[in-house]
């Protein structure tokens, strides 16, 4: 029962068109950011003038880029450390309050961050975290906790207990056993947790919108503000260049770490 050749050709053509529909916006924005456009810095000929505009906008691209990198670094490090420790605790130690801790962590999933940003804004003013990159990184980490703790606990659950028991008989304490024996085994899950945290921190728009002023903007927020503040005349060239800058790390990570991506998505799929 083989499909006739013409049917396969038609299918291939249709599939190609569909695939093209998905990637053409990405290609379009990359090409346009370098191409000549009236009303942008790159008004004639091809070049990088749009990217140079970004460098000159308000605080300048390097500041926003650095803000984004700092927020991402805080979120990645905190998510990986906090969730690995919590996963270790919930998987390996038997104590009263363990299940409560795990359930409370998971319950964060029930609460959308959109509904907590108003009180967080006021609370941050009281504890001196308002308009700080640390504050933004902390909130992003908080909302990574349920999924990532879940991933880490499952990773620890999959390791037989004798492994670290043998190490403890040899005189390791529980922290040494974690570092030397268990971390090398759960590393793939830690990469997934870090990747999820990076993507969220790099791309999140709403949390910095509520919690950051313009000097502490991350890149997505700065790009949106730039578009609004040019007095009616929108510099689309600069917007396109900004989108490309935002896309590059995501696309590279996606192509390099597709395996972990899929793992992260799958972890999401079993969260219920």
């Amino acid at each position, binding site marked *: 029962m083989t499909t006739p050749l013409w049917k396969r050709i038609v299918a291939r053509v249709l599939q190609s068109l569909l695939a093209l529909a998905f990637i053409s916006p*990405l290609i379009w*924005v990359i090409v346009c950011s370098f191409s000549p456009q009236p*009303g942008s810095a790159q008004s004639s000929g091809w070049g990088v003038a749009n990217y140079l505009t970004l460098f000159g906008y308000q605080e300048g691209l390097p500041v926003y880029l650095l803000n984004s990198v700092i927020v991402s670094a805080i979120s990645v490090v905190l998510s990986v450390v906090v969730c690995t420790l919590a996963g270790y605790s919930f998987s390996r130690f038997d*104590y009263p309050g363990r299940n409560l801790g795990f359930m409370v962590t998971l319950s964060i999933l029930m609460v959308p961050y959109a509904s907590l940003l108003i009180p967080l804004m006021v609370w941050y003013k009281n504890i001196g975290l308002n308009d700080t990159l640390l504050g933004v990184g902390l909130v992003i980490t908080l909302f990574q906790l349920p999924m990532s703790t879940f991933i880490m606990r499952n990773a620890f659950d999959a390791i037989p207990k004798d492994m670290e028991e043998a190490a403890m008989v040899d005189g390791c304490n529980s922290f040494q056993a974690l570092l030397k024996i268990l971390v090398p085994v759960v590393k793939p899950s830690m990469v997934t947790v870090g990747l999820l945290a990076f993507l969220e921190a790099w791309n999140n728009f709403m949390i910095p919108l509520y919690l950051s002023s313009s000097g502490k903007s991350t890149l*997505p927020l700065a790009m949106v503000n730039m578009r609004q503040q040019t007095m009616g005349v929108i510099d689309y060239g600069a917007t396109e260049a900004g989108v490309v800058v935002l896309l590059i790390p*995501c*696309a590279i990570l996606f192509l390099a770490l597709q395996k972990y991506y899929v793992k992260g998505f799958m972890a999401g799929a079993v969260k219920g």
Partner: protein
Amino acid sequence: MPSVSKGAVPERKSKARAAQTRRGLLYALPDWAMIVLLFFVPIALLFIMACSRWSLMGGNRGLNFPDNFIAVFENKLFGQSILFTLEYTVIVTIFLLVLGLGLALIVQESSKWNNVLRTCFLLPSATGLASASLLFYALYSPQVGPVTKILSFFGLMDQGGSVLATGQSALWATIIVIVWRFSGYYMLLMMIGLQAIPGDLYEAARMDGAGTWRIFRSVTLPLMKPTIVMCLVYCVTGSILAFDQFFILTKGGPNNSTMTVVQLIYNFAFDSKKDLGMAAALSLLVLVALVIINAIQMRGMRDNTK
């Protein structure tokens, strides 16, 4: 003598238990600290703010329950934004589920060609929602984007007009962004579901003479039900909270016709009312609604997996 050793064992055991508890709590401490400081406190504060006169500039001016809630319910944008959010949610959910399953069926079998297709479909999912919205904002612009030119070429639109100019077309323009951004993600979830269906079932159905459509209806769809329900849950909860895409593409306009509920929170807090109390009251309503929806859906999913 034996009684001594008997006494020693439980003592050592209880000591070991205490050590277990101490270590366990210690490793969970950072998790707990974050939850208490950044989750419990803001939730408590949300309740207080929702019941207080609390303006953006003036700060807390004491309790006023239930004034904030009454003000929210009486605001004409409240009902309108709920209706709009629901309309958006229904349309997006239908599109994403159908497309997700369709794409998954296309690329289900592993081959070089299908791997290329998968990567193409998934690549938009790697972009952030804000960057995707900005990208389409440029695509839709009459100055530089091709969309206006193409539509006006076919006589569907005025030259120099924008698809974001009227409420209805802005809604569809936004839906296209979301479908572009999320189809690959739902394709992946559906693929995982498809792979769990044992191959012999298809074999047996084919032996019985079932055609492609019949197999899809009688084998694939029923066995995919748990996956489809799960995707439905994600899609509905995600869409109800829609913010970035509308904030960036339309800012709720034209004429507040694309104002979603979560955007209205922002609007109450910073634009129209500058009233954090009202914004908190609406936030609390959103939170309660989402917790109820999540609870119902989790119960539904548990029944499904049984």
